[in-house]
């Protein structure tokens, strides 16, 4: 800047007062001398105009908005560096960590963390909740009480005993159902009614019947499982010498060799009995 004087003010003095004049803090005779110099000086006049224009341009700039992630990035980067706080915490005695806790920590971080992250998903939690609800409702309907579970023994013998007892209960329950009993009786009746048809089947295979007289496996089930208690009664005649006969009945012992069926003196006793041949 040329160093010459105009209106009693040198250019370097004008340059010194320029900032204050633009800021509006220059007043009085100083402001008058400043303005007079700006009007007559060919170097300082344009300088004042340009400085004012530049200031106006800069004042027109608005603040820019920092990125939303800036604060998070700063906090993340500052917590990872060596700081006063970390140094203080490093000097403090650290709690002793056992090898088991370290193994647990590494196991959890390495293997269980992904699984735990999956379990924490709302979808999985809802499914688990619904499954638990259905199980609890099922157990309640089945009559299982939580108090009973305390007495459950998990020994193999106890489990076997529980299995057989449960099976026996189920079979007993099934056989005691009135409907099942009636159906079984009806089925037996139907089989009995169908039984007369069977001889024709026997005749179709007479040769084999002869060979396997004692083999009843080919016979109808009704023949094999005859229930004589429900069949017609069989009359069995038995004749026993009644009355004192020293020759035949000797005291407490019966001499079968002396019995003669042709003896007309013997009384005939008719006895009807139901015998069950099993």
């Amino acid at each position: 800047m040329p160093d010459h004087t105009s209106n009693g003010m040198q250019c370097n003095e004008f340059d010194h007062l320029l900032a204050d004049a633009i800021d509006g803090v220059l007043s009085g005779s100083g402001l008058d001398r400043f303005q007079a110099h700006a009007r007559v000086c060919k170097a300082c006049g344009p300088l004042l105009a340009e400085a004012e224009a530049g200031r106006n341009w800069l004042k027109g700039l608005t603040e820019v908005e920092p990125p939303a992630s800036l604060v998070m990035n700063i906090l993340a980067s500052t917590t990872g560096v060596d700081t006063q706080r970390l140094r203080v915490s490093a000097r403090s005695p650290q709690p002793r960590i056992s090898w088991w806790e370290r193994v647990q920590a590494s196991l959890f971080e390495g293997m269980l963390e992904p699984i735990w992250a999956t379990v924490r998903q709302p979808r999985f939690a809802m499914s688990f909740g619904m499954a638990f609800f259905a199980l609890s409702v099922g157990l309640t309907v089945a009559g299982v009480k939580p108090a009973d579970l305390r007495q459950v023994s998990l020994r193999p013998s106890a489990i076997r005993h529980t299995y057989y007892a449960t099976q026996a209960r189920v079979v007993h329950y099934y056989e005691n159902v009135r409907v099942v009993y009636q159906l079984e009786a009806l089925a037996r009746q139907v089989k009995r009614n169908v039984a007369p048809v069977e001889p024709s089947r026997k005749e179709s295979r007479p040769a084999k019947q002869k060979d396997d007289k004692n083999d009843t496996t080919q016979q109808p089930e009704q023949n094999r499982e005859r229930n004589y208690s429900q069949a017609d009664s069989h009359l069995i005649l038995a004749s026993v010498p009644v009355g004192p006969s020293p020759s035949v009945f000797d005291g407490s012992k019966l001499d079968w060799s002396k019995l003669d069926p042709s003896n007309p003196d013997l009384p005939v006793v008719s006895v009807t009995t139901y015998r069950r041949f099993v």
Partner: protein
Amino acid sequence: MEDVQVVAMLVRRCIAGDSAAWEEIVQTYNRRIYNICYRFAGSGDDAQDLTQEVFIKMYRTLSSYDHNKGAFVTWVTTITRNLLVDHFRKTKQDRMTDSIDTAAPEHEDAQPLSEQIPDQSAPPDARVRSREVGETVHAALAKLSPELREAVILRDLQDMDYREIAAVLKVPEGTVKSRINRGRAELARLLQRTYRQVM
């Protein structure tokens, strides 16, 4: 204006290990520091990186702050300015290489801003127009020398007084005023040339 006692308490809490205090400091000053870095570096990505570096340095040297020596904002701005100068020196070689590659003229005035900023058609509304003007001024600001740029940024964009700027730049107040005057005038000349070219 910052309350000296409140800031001093925040700093003490932060040194004592209160993470909430540090987060409050970050929340309070990140916008200011980001804007200084953005206006000085000229790039949003560079500004973000530089802002993080400033806060990392602040976090490391927070115990060295003495509120009797000056305001906390002056201390923060000094750290920012020093980092920006270091960044400018580090990237100076890159910029020179870029200039050679692009065969730019030696004098900055020989390359008008109109060649760098695309000449677009008339904006449909005032908002777009204002944004264009802002981008033009921002580009012109980047053309200033670092000494002039930092002076006008601290004065006209951050509204610091001359004494604080002098403390940050470590130069006399007279030098600060001179740099501000020259920076404003240089910026106006660049913009006048630009708009003359555009018109």
